[in-house]
């Protein structure tokens, strides 16, 4: 059974690009346009990994990860932050929220897939 990855990004083009890379590697993809939308879409379903943007309207990525980690069902779900932010302070916030990796856009698909395969739940 293929594994499911949740993509959270307010940019529709980025959701498409990440989706193309992940589907090409055999993953199932669910997407959401911000943190709040993502929490709604989780709905108890099995998610093997989350890829989230940081700067988003309604609910930003850092708040979303904190909320995700409060849910026992997703406490151990690995999160990759995918963002244009490269400032150390922001990275620290992501790490403290519970993210496992910080990828700066634009990313090369094979590098992203390496990070995904390294972190994804069995």
């Amino acid at each position, binding site marked *: 059974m293929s594994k499911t990855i949740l993509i959270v990004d307010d*940019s529709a083009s*980025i959701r498409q*690009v990440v*989706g*193309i890379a992940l589907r*090409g590697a055999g993953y199932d993809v669910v997407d959401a346009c911000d943190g709040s939308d993502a929490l709604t879409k989780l709905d108890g379903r099995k998610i093997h990994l989350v890829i989230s943007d940081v700067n988003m309207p309604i609910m930003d990525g850092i708040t979303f990860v904190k909320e995700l980690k409060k849910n026992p069902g997703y406490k151990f779900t690995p999160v990759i932050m995918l963002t244009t932010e*490269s400032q150390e302070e922001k990275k620290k916030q992501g790490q403290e929220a519970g993210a496992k*990796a*910080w990828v700066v856009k634009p990313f090369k698909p094979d*590098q992203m897939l390496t990070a995904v395969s390294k972190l994804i739940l069995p």
Partner: protein
Amino acid sequence: MAKNKHWIEGLLVRVLPIWRGQIGFACELTETTIIALTVKFSGIVAELNKVKESSLALIETSKTDSGLTDDSMAIDSRIANIRELIGKNANKAIVEELDALRDEVKVKLARYEKSMEEINVANDLIKSQVEEVLVDFQFQDRVSQILRQVAQAQNELCDVVADNVKSSSEVSRDFDADEWLEQLQESYAMEDQVRIHAGKVQNEAKKLDEITFF
């Protein structure tokens, strides 16, 4: 007619929203176009994958249906066995026919292998080009982010100028230009933006592969 001393502020209050609108329009146009392109591209990639899988399956099926084996050493060995069974005194014509058959099988095998190799080479090339396009698509996200920040800053500046006109003073007492510029700098997500803000030329727009594991 004497000019109002706040004419420049008056002009800015009128022109800044216009520029903000133009930037918003440009941002929306590029975003809409890129989204449409990525959707189409996603479809093309899916179709290419199907074509590749079908081509490889077709070649494999043709090879199997022809009763060919991948092992040319095995063909040589079987031909040698037949020659031995026929015996040393076998008709020269039969031996030559066997050799010709062996060569024909080998040529067919080589053709199938070449076709498979060509498909794999083409696939690698397409994969690499797809990856390049996926990287290029992502720059739209940066462009949108920069344009949104400029529009937001213009919005704030417009409010400041409007307040200044209302206060009828030369300079608004509540506004600290240095502080405002500092806040603007702190709002940037990208190092390139910080560099440009500081008056430096940006030259690392295509920096890639910044991945940090925690």
